[in-house]
């Protein structure tokens, strides 16, 4: 009698976990992947706004350019899911992850390109998008 409800529940949970894993798998590549902000300076000395994100299953290492040198911070990485949406959370913000085609203008021709967009937190109207490539 209860098999069908349990089956539906199990399937729903499976889909949810799978969707969360998708966002994470995109960024970690089932291991650890380094992503650079699209448009990072290619010269040895970094420029303001340049950043490198290294995603792994549980954490993200963020290297940001400060006064011409890289400054590294580490944040805990967690998947989230709410209201039919999912993504990853780190540094006090929740992000939706979207793989973009290289043809998207923001990707500037990079084949492996993703967009991380913050989810509105109810405190501010502004959302932030980070375009990463590797």
């Amino acid at each position, binding site marked *: 009698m209860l098999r069908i409800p349990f089956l539906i529940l199990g399937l729903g949970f499976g889909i949810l976990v799978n969707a969360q894993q998708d966002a994470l798998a995109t960024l970690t590549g089932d291991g650890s992947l380094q992503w650079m902000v699209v448009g990072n300076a290619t010269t040895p000395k970094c420029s303001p706004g340049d950043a490198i994100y290294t995603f792994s299953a549980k954490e993200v290492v963020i290297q940001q350019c400060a006064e011409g040198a890289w400054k590294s911070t580490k944040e805990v990485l967690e998947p989230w899911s709410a209201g039919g949406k999912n993504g990853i959370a780190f540094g006090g913000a929740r992000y939706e992850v979207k793989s973009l085609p290289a043809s998207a203008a923001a990707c500037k021709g990079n084949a492996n390109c993703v967009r991380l967009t913050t*989810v509105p937190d109810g405190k501010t109207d502004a*959302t932030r998008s980070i375009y990463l490539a590797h």
Partner: protein
Amino acid sequence: MEEKLPNRSTDYSKAVAPLLTVLGITVGAWQFTSQMSHESKMEFSRSMYTKKLQAYEEVGKAVGDLLVVPHDERLWISAEDTMAFDSCLERFRTCYWGVLPLVEDSTVEVAMIQFKDMARFYRRGENDYHDLAREGMSLMNACNQSLENHWSRPKKGE
């Protein structure tokens, strides 16, 4: 000589009658004030509901206009649709900044932000038509929910 004792029950009734009158007037006045207060609250709530409904209708129209711009619901925006799309997006942004801050609730606000972002992403060719339509539907559902909640859950300070 027999002294006439005062009738106690008559004395009580003399004292109770004015008291009852005063009590009756007080209760009546309290009921009247309470009724007036309730009526004014209901009137305010009704006018807010009407304003909300009008604002959400305007948003619905702006969303609908944005969603019908792409011819044949094409997956990606085409060059000939960009001008009309920008014009509709402008109207949506007018709703976003001009009308809704007065009436919206937090759920509608989040849905508005997400639709605005999605319209921008669609315009840039980062997201397809299905994503835009999905966000539009979420926004209209949030408006619908907000109208339903208007009568069931009084807002703080109302």
